[in-house]
């Protein structure tokens, strides 16, 4: 709309017409979310499309850099009668966190000590620990962690799986769950993390599941469920997948690449469709 306003700024007709070219193939947009048929100003991106991109980039940047509102998240969890254990990684602030992934994978010395003393008070028969980590998108955690926690907590109860108090880690990476699980001697680590934000998915939550986590485990020991958000995978579908993985690992005594996710093998047998408008 901004573009059409520009044409009424008093330029002569000849100069004020034809400076913006729209594309005759805008109907293609129904086939993909890609930024196609944007039109052009000369050969450049028109104002509206440019600003809409910048807004999406701004949202993604904010998701990375705005700190997690811990108090808000804690009070949401307390509504579920849950008090999380508050922990910090070894990364001091966002700048160091982004450049030193190794520091985000370890608990700070103080947090490790806190957790070790808490571990002594936890009943040894407790199986699962849900850990919430800000990761690369505080926005994802703020939007989804409390609700998703509620969902999986309920599902674990239905399966008769016992739960320790959850942990909440600031400036953390996925592997911090190995150290936490190791200290707590957890059988099942369920780690919720804010994923690297995409331009159209600043609020994407990931879940990493590790069976009998130990310090020094690698990504090969985990299973990942990605892209949990309203426009991606639903809480229900993600919880279904997680419970499937947990049940499998309890039988097999491991998790990770060797545990192939076949929870949706039926749908994936569908034949891919070949035909499309360009070739018809």
């Amino acid at each position: 709309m901004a573009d059409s306003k520009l044409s009424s700024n008093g330029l002569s007709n000849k100069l004020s017409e034809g400076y913006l070219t729209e594309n005759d193939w805008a109907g293609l947009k129904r086939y993909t979310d890609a930024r196609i048929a944007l039109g052009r100003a000369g050969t450049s991106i028109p104002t509206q499309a440019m600003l809409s991109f910048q807004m999406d980039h701004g949202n993604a940047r904010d998701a990375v850099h705005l700190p997690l509102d811990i108090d808000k998240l804690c009070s949401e969890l307390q509504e579920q009668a849950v008090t999380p254990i508050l922990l910090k990684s070894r990364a001091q602030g966002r700048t160091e966190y982004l450049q030193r992934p190794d520091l985000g994978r370890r608990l700070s010395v103080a947090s490790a000590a806190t957790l070790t003393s808490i571990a002594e008070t936890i009943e040894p028969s407790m199986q699962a620990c849900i850990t919430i980590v800000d990761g690369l998108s505080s926005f994802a955690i703020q939007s989804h962690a409390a609700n998703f926690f509620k969902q999986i907590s309920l599902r674990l109860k239905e399966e008769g799986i016992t739960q320790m108090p959850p942990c909440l880690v600031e400036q953390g990476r996925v592997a911090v769950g190995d150290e936490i699980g190791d200290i707590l001697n957890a059988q099942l680590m369920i780690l919720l993390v804010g994923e690297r934000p995409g331009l159209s998915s600043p609020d994407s939550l990931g879940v990493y599941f590790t069976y009998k986590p130990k310090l020094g485990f690698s990504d090969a020991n985990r299973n990942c469920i990605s892209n949990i958000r309203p426009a991606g995978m639903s809480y229900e579908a993600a919880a279904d997948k997680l419970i499937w993985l947990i049940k499998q690992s309890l039988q097999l005594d491991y998790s990770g690449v060797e545990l192939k996710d076949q929870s949706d093998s039926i749908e994936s047998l569908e034949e891919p469709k070949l035909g499309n408008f360009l070739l018809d």
Partner: protein
Amino acid sequence: MSYSISAGGNHWVFPDLKTVMAKASPDRSGDRLAGVAAQTSQERVAAQMVLADLPLKTFLTEALIPYEKDEVTRLIIDKHDQNAFRPISSFTVGDFRNWLLSDLADTTQLKNISLGLTPEMVAAVSKIMRIQDLILVAKKCSNPTAFRNRIGLPQRLSTRLQPNHPTDDPTGVAASVLDGLLYGSGDAVIGINPATDNISSVITLMKLLDDIIQRYDIPTQSCVLTHVTTHLEAINRGAPVDLVFQSIAGTEKANKSFGIDLAVLKEAHSAALSLNRGSCGDNVMYFETGQGSALSADAHFGLDQQTCETRAYAVAREFSPLLVNTVVGFIGPEYLYNGKQIIRAGLEDHFCGKLLGLPMGCDICYTNHAEADQDDMDMLLTQLGAAGVNFIMGIPGSDDIMLNYQTTSFHDALYIRKILGLRPSPEFEHWLIKMGITTEQGLLLDGLPAAFSHLQARIGG
């Protein structure tokens, strides 16, 4: 052997050559993460001064990763051309920089010495070059290649049309392909990153792209960027494979982490050649690289990331690729923290690859957790355009909805062609005119071209 120098009022000692190389590298987060970076600005310049006085031939006798331990080192040493090296064999690294910048080093001379250069020599000289040096020398290199069209000729700039889709939906892919073609994109390759490595969906995409190229008689090539072994399987199953793709790195161990070695690349290269699908030339490989890949696989052996990257070009050179693409900002801020580091790295990679004789392109890109934005990409694009980059990416509105990062758009390619007077590959340029997409002068025409008017009912707004 250790190296020392008195400079800036201090005496600096470096225990070995790889330490000199690492400390001489312009600042970047990946070298700090690896613990090999200079601790102070003075130490960095002292290392650069040591490097400038070092004879080039040192790199032929002092391997940074032992010959016995690494097949990439063996490749570099065994394939070194002494005759090509002779004219520059008495140079120090500092002399070499002066010679490269001089008018004596013209396109022909640079081509003649190319096989006499090792990646380490080239990496070393890049560390004592400024941005304008990297641009000036790269601009003098000419490394054209060909398959179904010619890429990298003087004053030409090609694009990889990258029609990625999060679920590999053929119609969604085709929508981005058509949009790109109508914006004059796709002469380097129409290359899709598949969401899955599943062989049947990979073959579906290969057929889709091949059908489009044949149906509209487009002088370009297709590629589905899947693992080299998946390409071999697809070739065995009779799939239409134009280019074989693989990510490569600069050490044997890093390549192992990608699930490859030189033997499997050789096998794939032969298999692709045997299909004989090129009409203009037989460059059948498409490689991607990027600083930081060796460190992320814990396979850098104490080398800095830029030297590791340049060693990957020795691997590429062995297989006469059509395209080599340094995906500079994809790896994230732990390797290249901000726009400044990404820009410098992109120009280094382009310069080093060009000097080694490769058809270098660049994925001018960033992720949302890097300290970078569109302005930084505009700067790198403009500088690489000036440096004569063979190709860049072309993607709808800069937004890759599958890989979740930002690279250059169809519009960006039109910008750089416009301001520098660059044109697409000649065969593709002719096709654009024939199809009514552009004028003879290369200007985009308005509206849906007649050659696509049968689609109007399906794609109109």
